[in-house]
């Protein structure tokens, strides 16, 4: 063994920004996360040129997966053109040479904050979700050591209790986003703050989902064809947001998750949250060929 075999040539930057040891750690942890679906795996969470809490967890996973042939889509609440999404996408392509896209069907890696695209993702796509709070038990157990023990014991009684209390107090389950869901019948995870509308898209999906919380330094995964069941009582069916009858005022599509825009003088109008779906619908109306792929929801009903 010589010094030359232990060192490598000088380079101004590492490919994909993260250094090799950071990537090896993430790779080890991602494999363990896939092996135990829904179980939170701790990792070191390196510094990236972005504030913690702005998607650094998702960014680190994407930077580990990315190569020059990747096609990256980044969305923030469904929109490709949000400041956060655009900056992350530009950063990824600058440090890796990967292509950028707005089209869910073209992407190989979709990094998302708080939404799952409306078009069905394929077998070879990876969905990377940014997670602010990975611990579903935080609301009922602030001590993370005890929460870890509760996960080890599959002791989720307190989560059921919060859902029960919401029904007793309000008459319905008030949990709007980050709905606690049982993965592979064993670990309860928070699916990141995606709306209830999006949780069924993770159940028995074709794509791989990796959820990563940079500030909290944990990642977990939902492999393809894995059961993801929202916690519900047998006599209270799981309800998604009541958006089936709403129509987007710009693109005219209906039956998808909408953003509500309150109007002066009361009332609201709606715009489709998955902005690229709206763009495709507008292009189609303008005479371009219909580029919208199969969607998880058809006529407002989940049907995949």
């Amino acid at each position, binding site marked *: 063994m010589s010094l030359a075999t232990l060192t490598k040539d000088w380079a101004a930057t590492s490919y994909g920004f993260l250094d090799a040891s950071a*990537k090896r750690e993430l790779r080890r942890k991602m*494999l363990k996360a896939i*092996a*135990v679906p829904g179980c939170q795996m701790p990792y070191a969470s390196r510094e990236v040129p972005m504030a913690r809490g702005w998607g650094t967890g998702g960014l680190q996973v994407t930077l580990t*997966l990315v190569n*020059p042939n990747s096609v990256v889509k980044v969305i923030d609440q469904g929109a490709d053109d949000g400041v956060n999404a655009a900056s992350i996408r530009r950063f990824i392509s600058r440090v890796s*040479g990967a292509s950028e896209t707005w089209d869910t069907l073209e992407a190989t890696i979709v990094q998302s904050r708080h939404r799952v695209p409306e078009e069905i993702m394929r077998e070879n796509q990876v969905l990377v979700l940014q997670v602010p709070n990975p611990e579903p038990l935080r609301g009922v157990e602030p001590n993370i050591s005890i929460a870890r023990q509760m996960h080890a014991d599959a002791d989720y009684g307190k989560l059921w209790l919060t859902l029960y209390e919401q029904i007793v107090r309000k008459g319905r389950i008030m949990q709007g986003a980050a709905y606690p869901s049982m993965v592979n019948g064993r670990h309860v995870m928070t699916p990141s703050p995606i709306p209830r509308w999006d949780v069924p898209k993770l159940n028995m999906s074709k794509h791989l989902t990796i959820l990563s919380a940079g500030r909290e330094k944990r990642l977990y995964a939902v*492999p393809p064809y894995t059961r993801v069941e929202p916690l519900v009582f047998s006599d209270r069916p799981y309800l998604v947001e009541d958006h089936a009858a709403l129509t987007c005022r710009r693109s005219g599509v209906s039956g998808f998750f909408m953003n509500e825009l309150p109007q002066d003088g009361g009332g609201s109008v709606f715009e489709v949250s998955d902005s690229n779906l709206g763009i495709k619908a507008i292009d189609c109306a303008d005479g371009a060929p219909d580029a919208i792929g199969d969607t998880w929801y058809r006529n407002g009903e989940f049907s995949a």
Partner: protein
Amino acid sequence: MLTVAPPDRLESRSNLTFEALMWALSRPGDVRSLPEAGFESILETLVDIECTAFADTPALRARIVASGATLADRIATADHVFVSTIESAEIAEINCGSALYPDDGATLVAAVPHEGQRLRLTGPGINGLIEVRLALPPGFWAMRELLCSYPEGFDCFFVDGASVIGIPRSTKVEVL
């Protein structure tokens, strides 16, 4: 304007290897291709100074030492285990982690021909069921069943040349 340095050879190989391993583990039973035959690309993708690794060949032991990882003298203390022949009695002491820390469970990388015994796999990552052939010594799967008390357990990569099949602890294996 910043220009992107292309990935060096190590990074390209690690990226390809990880992609093969990730999809192999995400879809148990699917055969994925490593960029090159053998364990070396897997070792350089996963093992570094933070790991304790075991290998049963001198060449791989030298690679482990060069990677900075601690060389384990027994399988029990290793978090990454590279074996060219499976001795069930030795594998039986592999680290399976705990319910508190399932990520402590070891990764087993073994040279196993993708032929012989028919197995039926079910579980996460598999749409219904899938059948594979793996030439493992009799008793291996019974031992795995005994050790892997989900979420405790160990995760396997069975390498045949440049092909790899992943079987995570979450997979149920039925010997046909």
